[in-house]
């Protein structure tokens, strides 16, 4: 069934969109990532103009995150205190990110800048997660091996302004979560994604939050970041395609519910290894695009009426 999208001005198969939404929603529910880093490249691939893909992708991530958070809420997987602290940092970081983005646009190299940040951050985080989770998976296979403590006391715990994060079972300074939120907000604004794939490992490795609350809290924060992005895009460039979003959402919310349930069956290490592989795959894909000679050297920039 072909469907004409009023804002994107292309005709695409409705079931293809439902399927795409479903796959990304599944990932989102399983790993607690918004799926922005997957949906946007996939939409480019099926011929949706980049500006519409970025804006509508953000709208879709709102829906799958809401669905995911509600599922997490019932199993008490959301640390609201931590969520709000991260969000405050996120807004500050996002404002700085938008400013840097404007500078790069003026310099005319925004595409390259975005692609390079994808390769660097996805590659770095993917590799780190993969190495760490592989090690803990191997350790779990060997009984009797020394068990490492969930989180070690480090310089992070010596900082002032301590706050109790009950759901996470943490009593730490607000500075690290604020900084993590700001970093994620900054990257999110530059890369046009919710930032879950950075947030999740940062929460686990930097803040030492238990895996149980990481996904829900990350999704909680992503809702607000992507909601802000959606409205900004709708107002400044009219690039949110409601019809496209609705189909992606319908597929996505169902996928997110299934993903959450599958995710609960898997062990935390397996989950992290899968997410790291996915992140690495996207990073390699973009790196290949940058390194191989493209079949078409010329591109025509938008400005269709």
């Amino acid at each position: 069934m072909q469907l004409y999208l009023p804002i994107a001005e292309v005709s695409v198969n409705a079931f293809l969109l439902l399927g795409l939404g479903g796959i990304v929603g599944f990932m989102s529910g399983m790993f607690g990532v918004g799926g922005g880093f997957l949906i946007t490249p996939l939409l480019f691939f099926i011929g949706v103009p980049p500006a519409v893909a970025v804006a509508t992708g953000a709208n879709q991530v709102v829906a799958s995150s809401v669905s995911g958070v509600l599922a997490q809420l019932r199993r008490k997987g959301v640390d609201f205190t931590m969520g709000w602290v991260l969000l405050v940092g996120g807004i500050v970081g996002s404002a700085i990110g938008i400013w840097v983005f404007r500078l790069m646009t003026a310099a005319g190299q925004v595409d390259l800048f975005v692609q390079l940040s994808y390769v660097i951050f996805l590659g770095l985080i993917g590799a780190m997660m993969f190495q760490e989770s592989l090690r803990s998976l191997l350790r779990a296979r060997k009984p009797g091996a020394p068990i490492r403590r969930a989180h070690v006391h480090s310089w992070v715990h010596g900082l002032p302004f301590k706050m109790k994060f009950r759901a996470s079972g943490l009593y730490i300074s607000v500075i690290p979560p604020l900084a993590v939120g700001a970093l994620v907000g900054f990257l999110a604004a530059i890369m046009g994604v919710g930032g879950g794939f950075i947030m999740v490992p940062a929460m686990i490795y930097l803040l030492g939050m238990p895996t149980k609350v990481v996904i829900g809290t990350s999704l909680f924060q992503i809702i607000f970041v992507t909601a802000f992005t959606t409205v900004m895009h709708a107002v400044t460039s009219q690039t949110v395609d409601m019809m496209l979003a609705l189909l992606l959402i319908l597929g996505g919310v169902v996928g997110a519910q299934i993903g959450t349930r599958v995710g609960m069956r898997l062990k935390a290490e397996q989950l992290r290894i899968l997410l790291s592989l996915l992140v690495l795959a996207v990073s390699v894909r973009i790196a290949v695009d940058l390194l191989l000679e493209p079949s078409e050297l010329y591109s025509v920039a938008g400005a269709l009426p």
Partner: protein
Amino acid sequence: MIRLALLLVALALPAAAQEQIVAGMSQNRVSITADFDGSEILIYGAVKRAGPPPEGVGPLEVIVTVQGPSTPVTVRRKDRVAGIWLNNAEVRVDSAPSFYAVATTGPLDHILSDTDNLRHAITIERVIRAVGITQEADRAGEFLLGLLRVRTDEGRYRVLQGKVELTEETLFRTDVILPANLTEGEYKVRLFLLRDKRVIAHQERVIGVRKEGLERWIFNLAQEEPLIYGLLSLVLAAVAGWGASAAFRLVRA
């Protein structure tokens, strides 16, 4: 320049008076609705003559063009810099149509002279007004070719040589397929009669392409009330997210 043009028009007039176009189209408006998947337009017509076909001249040829709304575009070229392929040079093109199709009775270079192509802007290269782009980049011609290639691959630019059927030098017809990725606006249809590579008569028609129904409503809301539209998109997303969550709980319970 104007005087030369007037002279050419004056020279063309006697022939034009002899043979004229009577044209019709299967539809003069296209509605883009939710299930829009491209549209086929039949353009047909006849040659009206006062007497018998003129003698001692070449055969009659017909060219039909369909042109979508034009906009300025930026064409960028990637180059390898430090091992990475990145956009390195760009050229602004003042005006390029979003859609352009040329249907003819025969190969363009056999039936159309360069002078008449220049005068009537028939081929796509002539339609794209690339004024002053040579100053911006040293190889502007390559950028123009790049633009043509990209848009041809997208199905936006088409050359349909030999796709106009002409019967007994009198009746002609052609089908032009408008693609699914159609842009809203006025589509200009031009019909040309040619003999000896020269245009002897031409006519213009317009097809109105408009979004209708739900498509129209969404598009207008996005343009006129962007804040409400943005918030509505969010509400939609939140409700759908909550709905799926609630539905799954029901299924499990």
